């Protein structure tokens, strides 16, 4: 599988999906959540929001290292052949002030239904600065795309 095809798969999944599974650590126990997210055009940054009174927020404040799994499975037999899973690995940084304006717009454009959620003072906006993507296709083909 060529580099261009892998990059194509990466973009298709990242821009084609609205939800992903965020893995955090923090308080010694691994934790995972389904999250809405949006992506920067250059793939170097991903954004997601979370209420502050959550376990994942606490985790993120304790340890900023995260993994975000994005996939396009259809939950049928063809998944083993057709599904592509992308894991973004990097550090999540909470955005504040004017730094958050652009990313918030991006999230709203992708998920307009989250307008109230994103506007809430109790909601924190995070930027995942991607160190690398791990792209898995055809069940076992694994490639790494460094972003740093």
């Amino acid at each position, binding site marked *: 599988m060529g580099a261009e095809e892998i*990059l194509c798969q990466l973009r298709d999944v990242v821009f084609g999906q609205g939800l992903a599974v965020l893995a955090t650590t923090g308080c010694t126990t691994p934790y995972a959540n389904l999250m809405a997210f949006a992506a920067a055009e250059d793939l170097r940054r991903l954004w997601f929001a979370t209420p502050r009174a959550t376990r994942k927020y606490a985790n993120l404040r304790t340890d900023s*290292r995260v993994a975000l799994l994005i996939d396009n499975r259809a939950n049928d*037999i*063809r998944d083993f*052949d057709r599904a592509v899973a992308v894991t973004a*690995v990097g550090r999540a940084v909470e955005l504040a002030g004017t730094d958050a304006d652009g990313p918030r717009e991006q999230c709203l454009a992708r998920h307009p239904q989250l307008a109230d959620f994103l506007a809430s003072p109790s909601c924190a906006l995070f930027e995942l600065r991607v160190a690398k993507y791990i792209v898995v296709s055809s069940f076992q083909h694994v490639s*790494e795309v460094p972003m740093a």
Partner: protein
Amino acid sequence: MNLSRDIQQVEPRDGARFGGKALALANLCRRGFPLPETMCISVDAYWQFVRSAGLRERILLELHRKHFGDMRWEEIWDAALRIRSFFLRAPFPPVLAKELSTRLGECFGQRPVAVRASVPEEDNGKASFVGLHDSFLNVQGARAMLDRIRLVWASLWSDRALLYRQELGLDIERSAMAVVVQAMVAGDRSGVALSRDPQNARQAVVEAVYGLNEGLADGTVEPDRWLLDRRTGRVVAHHPPVRRQYAVRPVGTGTALRPLAKELADQPPLSAEQTRQVWNLARQAEQECGSPRDLEWTYREDQLFALQCRPATVLAPDDERSWYLNLKRSYGNLRQLHARITGELIPEMAAVAAALASVALADLPPALLADELRKRRVAVDHWRQVYRHAFIPFAHGVRLFAQVYNDMVKPQNPYEFLSLLADTGLWSVRRNQALQRLAHQANREGGALAALASDRLDRAPASFRLAVEGFLAEFGSMFDRLGIGEMRERHLADLLREFGRHPVRVPNASRRDLVAAFVGSFPATDRERANDLLELARTSYRLRDDDNLHLGQIEAELARAVRLARERLRLILGDRAASVPEEIIPLLLRDARETAVLPEPTTVAPPTSGQGESHPVAARQLVGEPAGPGLVSGVARVLTSPADFFSFQGGEILVCDTIDPNLSFVVPLAAGIVESQGGMLIHGAIIAWEYGLPCVTGIADATKLIPDGARVTVDGYLGSVTVETPPAQSPAAS
């Protein structure tokens, strides 16, 4: 749901459940054609079997190891072999087994039957997929019938079917296989009839052999062939063959060839009246079905039976795929081929190579060198064709053995059969053993290697000098074939140094326990046949590895002439001589003035992606085919040119596009092998198996994706290679 029906109960609307073959036979039955007793098993039975064993998911995974378009035929065969193994080892759901065996017992008892594939896609009566799926003859008893039925189901995913997957519309979610079980008619004369000759629309064809049809179908028994005028039924031509053998139903299973009695060999299998009767049957079938038919028939004591009836269409013309289908040979056919290869072709090739080698090319004037070049090109082209049409089909005899072995032994590892083929005296293994002996000798005799490396063999101890000369006399042509003949002493010294420095693997011995289990799996009456088949497979396996060396000698002679011609052209053209196409060289040699107008070679820039921002992509885990069981980690050594192989160091993981037999001296030094070329029967896989090395083949672009010097893990069980990222490149977050 009723899973089976007598042929009389199959109706025109049942094609999707019982397949095209059942539908065609039911049509003939309704119209009063003479048929043997026939039972049809619907696709629902296939679905029950496949679903209960989770085979859909396993087939899907198997077929997506890599893009189908990137798979070589050998890889497709490997995938089909693994899928067949799934079917062989999957348990029959008890309820399904009970229902089918009860019905088969009621219908046929202990009478022998033929078990045939019936594909729903053929039910439109227009398409025909002859030879893509399996049929089995002379099967007795419900248990044996169930075993054969599962193999007919497996043949939905045969290598031939996978090649024609688009025409067949093969789809894991929709495709299924029905089965026709038919009482065997022990015909004394059999054949096929085409109601319209594909070559001449005004004629029909009748072909006939003595005994059963099997010899005709697999090409081992040549038939009598009649051409008839379709309008009048008059015989236009009769082409009698040399009649030697006929196929019979033996006591055990399958069919066997017997010599034909002289009184039968002297007369055609059909009288004029019988030929006309067969033609009439085919003609009526065409009238009933509305299009030309390909009818399989048999006579038993003057009673004519129709056995199969399909549309007289041929698969889409495609020379390459037709050639591949032709590689599937019967035991009898392989025996004939073996006799021709060893008795006729190899001696002839050796003589041709020797004659070419004896020509003193350097003494030839330009015009004669040009003639010699053309002559050698003709010889190479000729022998490549011979290689394609005789050597490769014979080498694929291993496939026949693999299938029989897996059918009889049902091993967990579908490649276990390879363990019975080890230690056959491969040329490359003999060469490696000679290298090892020479390395030991060099270690014992001080100064030997230094003398060899500095081209001063005359200064080496006499015994070592003699041993080296003996080695070069027997195996030295490998350096010429690699185009490094001038440096052969230096390369040999590098190699011996490495052989002497590291422990070298020794080849596996043939597994006597497995041989005994294989032969013992046959009934006592068939054990001689089992031994014969194993012997044929061992010969086929050895030739698979060695035969290209014979062709290689002739190709090396062409290369020698081209090299010399280029050297002469270099005097006129300078460096441009190296890029002159071979076919132009003779012209330039004859008329040196033309060299003045030789155009400068044009270079084409590599295409760009045309995309915006790009990112580097690094392989982490690559999937190919498991070609040698084992798990090993080590440093990857990526080899891209023959000279690289001489710097390979013991204990490294060999990564290359393909291993030429001339280069496989590195294998006993390697810890594992990764190859771009795929398939279990390629040289690299054969030799890795021989030495018991973890091996993964069929990873496209392995030499580009795996960095030289990277630490990798080769998983020869699952067929994957993991590239371990150097710590310096690890991102903080990983």
